[in-house]
């Protein structure tokens, strides 16, 4: 099961599903979820094969948390269907298979870290050893601490321990590194690598493209409740164009520029034109041939965050 080398951009769904032949960890089919007038998730379809680390990437309000909440059975779709290892979200089978970190998940007030972990561990059929989880989540010194007296980062490590303790086949993590410093974040993803090496699946949400790029082998980009891009980190970066050619031209029109080889999109600001490219070398050669009057040409890299904004803006337009 190798993943597509090219990105699947919005408007061409179904390619992932067509490739699937075995049991999937997650299968979302045409799911819609509204909150009053707000369309939080809009006809979303998504399949996650086993053993993958998939990033759900998008700005706040993209529908990531709503999607995760439905995957966990904490809320129900208005229409469409979801399967977790062929079980319904929230069913006993799904609960045994899935470990999750929620952004707003709290801990039982008034109990000790060690007591809480031991209790939660007792709820699973074949859990991990307590000591192993404590080590992975770096909670060794905190076992005797009350859960309501942990710092933000410590609480997040406890959430991780709670997610791992049942030895789940699938981890669903909603913005797992939000409260972590750089050091803790590195340790966290190191621990996650150990988890996937055992054939486990991870689906996590983030609004940092760099984090998705570093940790995931597939990125699903969401905006306004829909998938706007889906592919390997390299493919995503190619499709958005990570280099930009800027030039001035007497006739500033952008007609025909987007179809130049290696070009992705073009915008004009007065007489200055900006051309986003996945392959700026080819685009530059073609540009000079078609626009001999182009002057003050510069070629530069684009920050990952800017690329992210480009693709989500593209959807809005």
């Amino acid at each position, binding site marked *: 099961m190798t993943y597509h080398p090219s990105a699947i951009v919005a408007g061409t769904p179904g390619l992932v599903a067509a490739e699937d032949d075995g049991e999937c960890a997650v299968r979302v089919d045409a799911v819609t979820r509204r909150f009053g007038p707000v369309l939080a998730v809009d006809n979303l379809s998504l399949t996650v094969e086993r053993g993958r680390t998939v990033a759900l990437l998008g700005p706040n309000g993209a529908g990531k948390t709503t999607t995760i909440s439905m995957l966990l059975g904490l809320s129900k779709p208005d229409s469409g269907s979801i399967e977790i290892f062929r079980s319904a979200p929230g069913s006993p089978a799904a609960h045994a298979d899935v470990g999750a970190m929620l952004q707003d998940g709290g*801990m039982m007030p008034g109990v000790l870290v060690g007591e809480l972990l031991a209790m939660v561990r*007792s709820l699973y059929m074949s859990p991990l050893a307590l000591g192993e989880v404590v080590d992975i989540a770096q909670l060794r010194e905190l076992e005797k601490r009350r859960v309501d007296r942990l710092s933000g980062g410590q609480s997040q490590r406890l959430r991780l321990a709670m997610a791992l303790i049942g030895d789940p086949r699938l981890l669903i993590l909603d913005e797992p590194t939000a409260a972590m410093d750089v050091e803790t974040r590195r340790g966290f993803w190191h621990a996650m690598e150990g988890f996937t090496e055992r054939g486990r699946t991870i689906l996590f949400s983030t609004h940092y493209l760099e984090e998705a790029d570093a940790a995931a082998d597939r990125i699903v980009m969401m905006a306004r409740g829909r998938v706007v891009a889906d592919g390997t980190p390299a493919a995503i970066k190619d499709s958005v164009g990570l280099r930009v050619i800027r030039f001035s031209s007497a006739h500033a029109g952008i007609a025909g520029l987007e179809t130049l080889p290696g070009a992705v999109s073009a915008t004009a600001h007065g007489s200055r034109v900006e051309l986003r490219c996945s392959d700026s070398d080819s685009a530059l050669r073609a540009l000079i041939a078609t626009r001999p009057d182009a002057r003050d040409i510069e070629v530069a890299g684009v920050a990952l965050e800017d690329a992210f904004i480009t693709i989500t803006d593209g959807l809005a337009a």
Partner: protein
Amino acid sequence: MIKYLALEIRRSLRDRRYLLLVAGWPVAAYLLFSTVFGAAADRSEGLPPTVAIMVAMASFGAMGGVLMASGPRLAMDRQMGWLRQLRLTPLSPARILAARLTAAMALSLPAIILTFIAAALVKGVGLPLWEWPALVLLIAAGCLPFAAIGIVVGTIADGDGAQGLTMVLYLVLAALGGLWMPVAILPSVMQTIARTLPSYHLAQLGWHIARGEAPALGDGLVLLAWFAGAALLAVAVSRRLTLRSA
């Protein structure tokens, strides 16, 4: 589920403010009332005041222990996101509810036992041996409606609101139910109201035993009716709330 139940009970017993409120208060009130009124002749319950007040204060403390363990804690757990987290585990909502009800019921025991110990040691109350365990079990079991009422309160109100609402319910049920003063001295309208309240019937259960009689079926039925009503209400409000927030 046993471990979850045990942890629910343990965290309440560890909470000093809670223990002081639900066990310290009834014991102190018992010692005060039984000293002030202890010399009086037998009360309307047909019991010596030291015994009648012992049963009343044990019932008062038991009711408080259950209400406080049920409502405010549920509201707090919901607000903190612990219930959301717990719903991700294989523990089903029905088992979570059963464990919480059982834990709340168990927390009627500290007040009952401590009040009895104070009565026996300080006021020299003596009862036939079988009556002690019968009283403990019956008063504890009679607290079932309060556990369900607490679930309703904890579902509709948030943290501080649930704490306040529980306190008001606690005091009103105790005063109108005749736990602080004999119902007989109240105006007749109040007496009629008292006879509809679960707190009144909880005390009646205990007074029957203390007189060496079998508990009256009617008291048990009223308590069961309150439990059924509160349980139905709990189901209704929690369903409405999930529909609204999900």
